[in-house]
């Protein structure tokens, strides 16, 4: 192994150019007050970050994003695990079921979001149509017009879209468990529940942890699904950090503060991964 750095150089420089350079540029911009419309461009130090601490809209979007991440990952994990277990064995029509399972993952996010916003539409949506015709609701409900319902509608749409990803990773984990392991547990007298929690689940734990981390980071930065469905409304109830940062940067053209918001998202993602890795290290040690 002569001159390992030389061999690493292409990978490192690609990473530097595509990840670290934009990140540093954003950080640099976030230390400035920059509003091109008002020809303002000066050094601001940590002012933008101080502003974050006192911005109630930032606080609200942080809470929305945390809740969105926790809820959508929990739903995806439960649904994904159930789907993976169902598709684990060999049965007739398994290939067909796999195909069906992957369908939501193939649909581009904005298209899926459009579809869901039509399903939830108060006046013309199929959900209200069904609920009213079956007598569950007396009158149509504005699903995307009430803060709590709108947030959960967005979570559901995101979970629908990404459950296949979770299922696929977990299925790969399940298929790699040697069948002898579970048979041995059964032979030793463990029931199906005990086998699942003592043998199956621990065996796929590394895979499950990776899948949850991937999805949590994605959900933390969620933009497209929610933006197309509600654009953050009503009453900012679905305004995630990415949506708030986008509005501040691209609509208000407050480039300094918008960058601070963007950097806060990156910082939060880092924090999230670090906490996750720390916790899972404890668990497996």
């Amino acid at each position, binding site marked *: 192994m002569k001159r390992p750095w030389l061999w690493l150089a292409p990978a490192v420089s690609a990473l530097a150019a595509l990840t670290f350079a934009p990140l540093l540029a954003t950080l640099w911009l976030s230390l400035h007050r920059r509003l091109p419309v008002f020809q*303002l461009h000066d050094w601001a130090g940590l002012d933008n970050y101080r502003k974050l601490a006192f911005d109630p809209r930032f606080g609200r979007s942080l809470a929305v994003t945390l809740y969105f991440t926790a809820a959508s990952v929990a739903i995806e994990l439960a649904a994904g695990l159930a789907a993976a277990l169902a598709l684990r064995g060999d049965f007739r029509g398994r290939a067909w079921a796999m195909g069906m399972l992957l369908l939501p993952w193939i649909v581009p996010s904005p298209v899926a979001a459009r579809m869901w916003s039509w399903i939830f539409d108060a006046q013309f949506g199929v959900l209200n149509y069904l609920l009213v015709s079956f007598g569950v609701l007396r009158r149509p409900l504005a699903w995307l017009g009430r803060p709590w319902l709108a947030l959960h509608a967005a979570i559901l749409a995101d979970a629908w879209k990404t459950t296949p990803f979770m299922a696929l990773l977990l299925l790969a984990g399940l298929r790699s468990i040697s069948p002898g392991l579970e048979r041995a547990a059964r032979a030793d007298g463990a029931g199906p529940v005990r086998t699942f929690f003592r043998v199956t689940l621990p065996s796929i734990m590394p895979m499950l942890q990776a899948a949850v981390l991937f999805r949590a980071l994605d959900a933390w930065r969620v933009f497209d699904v929610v933006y197309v469905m509600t654009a953050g409304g009503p009453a900012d109830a679905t305004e995630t950090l990415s949506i708030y940062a986008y509005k501040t940067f691209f*609509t208000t053209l407050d480039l300094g503060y918008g960058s601070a918001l963007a950097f806060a998202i990156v910082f939060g993602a880092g924090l999230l991964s670090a906490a996750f890795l720390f916790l899972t290290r404890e668990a497996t040690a």
Partner: protein
Amino acid sequence: VGRLLLLCLLLCGCGARSKPPAVRLVFRHGGSLGSEPFFRSLFEEFEREHPGISVSSELLPANTDQQRQLNAVELQGSSSRFDVLDMDIVWVQEFARAGWLLDLSAYFDEKTRSGFVPSTLRSASFEGRYFSVPRSADAGLLYYRKDLLEKYGLAPPDTWDRLARDASEIVSKEKDPALTGFVWQGRQYEGLVCAAAEFLGSNGVRFLDERGRWAADDSKAARALGFMRDLIGPGRPSPESVLTADEETARLIFGNGQAVFMRNWPYAWGLFAEPGQPMKGKVAVALLPRFPGGKSVSTLGGWYLGVNHRSSHPKEAYEFIQFMTSRRAQTALFLRLSYLPTRKDLYLDPGLLARAPQLAEFERALDRAVPRPETPAYAGLSLLLQSEFSRALVGRCSPEAALRRIRRRAGSLLNPGGA
């Protein structure tokens, strides 16, 4: 030999044609679906009258927010790739403040301006100088079901209370479960600011003072905002779905015959009048209602033409703007794409009125149309208003609390330099 002759003919043909135009103008706009051949024919007319100038379109995405972003990015980067740009009314102050537009005051002089509808002119200027020319106008209107109001012997309502009462009365007497009273734009987006500006404005609220500072009368504004909130809900004039409604949602509901009243822009008129539409012949428009003691207010919309500060052909660019805002072009744009004219005399043109009698009603609304807050910081202010108005409408906070927060935030937003 035949082939050689053909080649010769071709070459001669090319040589005989006029020299390529010396000035090539690029017009940047959003266009609209399928309108490209129409714009092309307009440009050709201009090119015939101005030998030596050619015009081409650069089309932007249909979404206005994206158009604004793309324009802002390139203008900030001092791009000279385009000469004339089409601007939504609320961008003019911002782009002028940023120094991205050429001062057109020398061309767009008082005499020329006197031909335009006065309400459309204010937004064309910034700090007393003209940076743009209004090419089309828009104003909020009250649409109503002529057949239903006649059936119950009602005149179009002139106050908001009357509208609420009439809507509830008609809905309860009609006994049609699908029929609602009044649909408008209550989703958290720009359209909510347009609608709210009409409710608040018709209660005597002005958002900004002469110096561009936040100056809304909080108690009057709170009363109007509270009225908007109380319109919504079961047993009330507006269905809960207005909280998710934009212009198109409202138009579809009203166009299906599922609402007695609707707040919308003039574009909806042409669509209801199309053959086969269920509401054809049953729709009429009126001025929006007011609060007692207030005056009816329509939010002013519209598109304005400006010249890129980096354009190398400012004079020719203005000639093109002159052409696009001429009576002829505005007539064509109205008839083909329903853009309302900005020239006064077109609203008195007998030929045009015969083809489009609704112009008379549109003009009444346009006359009293009020622009949204005229400030270079409009985009940020609008985001704040959208958020707080929406919070008040869904009952997350009281109208008073929403207005207090707007007042607190507006100062630094409107004057970020802090001078």
